[in-house]
C-alpha cells in the first residue's frame, strides 16, 4: 500500500533493473518498490545514464550476434573483454542460453556442443529477442514512474534505431559537446552543497568513479569558470541525483553504498527496493 506522504526520485539502477533484467528477481523488486510511493519521479539524467550504460551494452551484444551469426562466438568475445568493459556476468552457460529460448534445446545432451545451424539459429533468436526488448523497454521508460522530470536541454533523448546493417544506432549517447551542460549553473549556484558532497566521498577510496566525482565536485564548487563538459557531467553521476532530488523525495536506488553518503551530507535520504 503506497504511503501518500512519500515520493521517490528514481535513479538509473532502478530503471536498469526494472526494464532490462527479464526474469531476474531484481526486476520484480524494482517494479514493486516503485508501487510503494504515491509519486515517483524519473529525471531525464537517469534515462541518459541508462542508455549510455546497460542499453549500450545490450546493443554491443546484439551487434556481435549480427556480425558473428553465432551465439557461441559472441559469448567467447564477451568473455574475453577486460573487466572494465564488461561488468556483467560471464558465467551463463550456452546450455542455459539455449534452453531459455528454445523448447527443443532442453532435450539436447549437456555435453554436446550446438551444431553450426543450431548455433546460428540461437544467435538469431537472441538477436531478435534483444532488439525486441530494447525497443519495447525504450517505449516503456517514461511510463515506469508517475512522472518524468528535469528534461536536459543539452541532451537529445533519441530512441535506439536499427540501421540498414541491422545493428543499433544509439546516437546521441552523450550530451551536446558544443554547449555547456544545462545543469552547470544550478550546480554552481550552491557551492556549499558541492563541497559537502565532495567531503562525503570516502577520502581513502581509490575507485576511479569516486576520485573523478570528488574532483569534479571540488572544481565546480571552487571556480565559476570551470566548464562542465559531457565527460565531467558523466563523472558527477550519483551526485546529480543527490543534488537535484526534490527535498520531499527519497532517492530510490539499489546502490545505497554510493548514494547514501552523498544524500546524507546534504540532508536528504535514500532507500533501496
Amino acid at each position: 500500500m503506497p504511503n501518500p506522504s512519500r515520493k521517490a526520485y528514481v535513479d538509473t539502477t532502478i530503471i536498469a533493473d526494472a526494464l532490462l533484467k527479464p526474469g531476474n528477481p531484481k526486476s520484480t523488486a524494482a517494479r514493486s518498490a516503485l508501487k510503494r510511493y504515491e509519486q515517483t519521479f524519473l529525471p531525464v539524467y537517469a534515462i541518459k545514464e541508462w542508455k549510455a550504460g546497460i542499453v549500450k551494452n545490450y546493443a554491443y551484444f546484439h551487434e556481435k550476434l549480427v556480425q558473428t551469426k553465432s551465439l557461441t562466438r559472441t559469448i567467447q568475445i564477451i568473455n574475453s573483454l577486460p573487466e572494465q568493459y564488461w561488468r556483467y556476468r560471464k558465467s551463463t552457460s550456452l546450455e542455459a542460453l539455449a534452453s531459455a529460448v528454445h523448447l527443443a534445446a532442453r532435450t539436447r545432451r549437456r555435453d554436446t556442443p550446438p551444431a553450426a545451424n543450431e548455433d546460428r539459429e540461437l544467435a538469431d533468436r537472441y538477436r531478435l529477442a534483444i532488439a525486441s526488448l530494447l525497443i519495447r523497454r525504450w517505449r516503456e521508460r517514461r511510463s515506469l514512474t508517475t512522472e518524468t522530470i528535469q528534461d536536459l536541454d543539452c541532451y537529445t533523448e533519441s530512441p535506439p534505431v536499427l540501421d540498414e546493417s541491422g545493428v543499433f544506432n544509439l546516437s546521441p549517447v552523450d550530451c551536446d559537446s558544443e554547449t555547456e551542460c544545462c545543469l552547470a549553473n544550478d550546480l554552481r549556484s550552491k557551492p556549499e552543497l558541492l563541497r559537502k558532497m565532495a567531503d562525503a566521498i570516502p577520502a581513502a577510496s581509490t575507485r576511479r568513479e569516486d576520485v573523478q566525482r570528488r574532483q569534479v565536485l571540488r572544481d565546480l564548487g571552487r571556480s565559476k569558470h570551470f566548464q562542465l563538459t559531457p565527460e565531467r557531467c558523466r563523472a558527477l553521476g550519483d551526485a546529480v541525483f543527490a543534488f537535484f532530488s526534490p527535498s520531499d523525495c527519497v532517492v530510490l536506488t539499489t546502490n545505497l553504498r554510493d548514494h547514501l553518503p552523498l544524500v546524507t551530507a546534504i540532508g536528504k535520504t535514500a532507500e533501496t527496493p
Partner: protein
Amino acid sequence: MSAPVLQFPKRTSGGSETALAPAKPAAKTSEFAGVSIVRAEGTAALAPIPIDVLYPATESNRTELIRALQLLAEAVPALEHARDALRSNDLIRSDHHVHSIQLLLPQLFRCRAIGDGFAAVVNALEIAFVNQGGQPLTEKQIVTVLRTLKELRSRPFVPFDLAQQSIEELEKVGLGVDPVTLGELFDAEPEP
C-alpha cells in the same frame, strides 16, 4: 471501356489457394508485374492472384512463406479448438491443443527468412511457452496467441517495429516473452 479489375483468389474445394483458375474467355487478360489484370465486360471475372504475388515474396523467401502459411493454417484451428475446449471446461484437452502449437513453433522459426518482424513474433511466442514451464494457458492468453497468429497469417511481412505491438499484447496477458537468461547475463558483478 471498363476499368481494369484486380482479381482475387478463387477458392476451390480441396485445391490450393495458389492454383490459377483459367480466365473467362470473354475477358481480356494482361499481365503486369506478375499480376493478372482482367478487363471484364459486365460481371467481374475471377482469376486468382498467387499467394506469393499477393505477398511480396522474393526468390529467397518464397518457399519459407508457403511453408509458414501452411503451418499457420494448422496452428490457427488448433488454437481455436484449445479456446473452445477451455470454454467447455476441458482444461486437459485445451492444453493438448496448445501443446500441438508449441511443436509447430520451431518449424515456423525456420521460416524466418520471411522477415525479422515475423521471426520476432514467432520467437517471442516460443520463449513465452518456455517461460510458461508447462503451465496451461488461460483463455485470455489463448485468445491473444490466436489473434497474434491470425495477424501473422494475414501479414507475414509485418515490419519489425510493428511486430512489437503484437509482442506487447502477449506481455499484457502475462506471457513472459523475453529470455530469462538476459536478466542473468546483464546483471552486474558486485563491485569490489
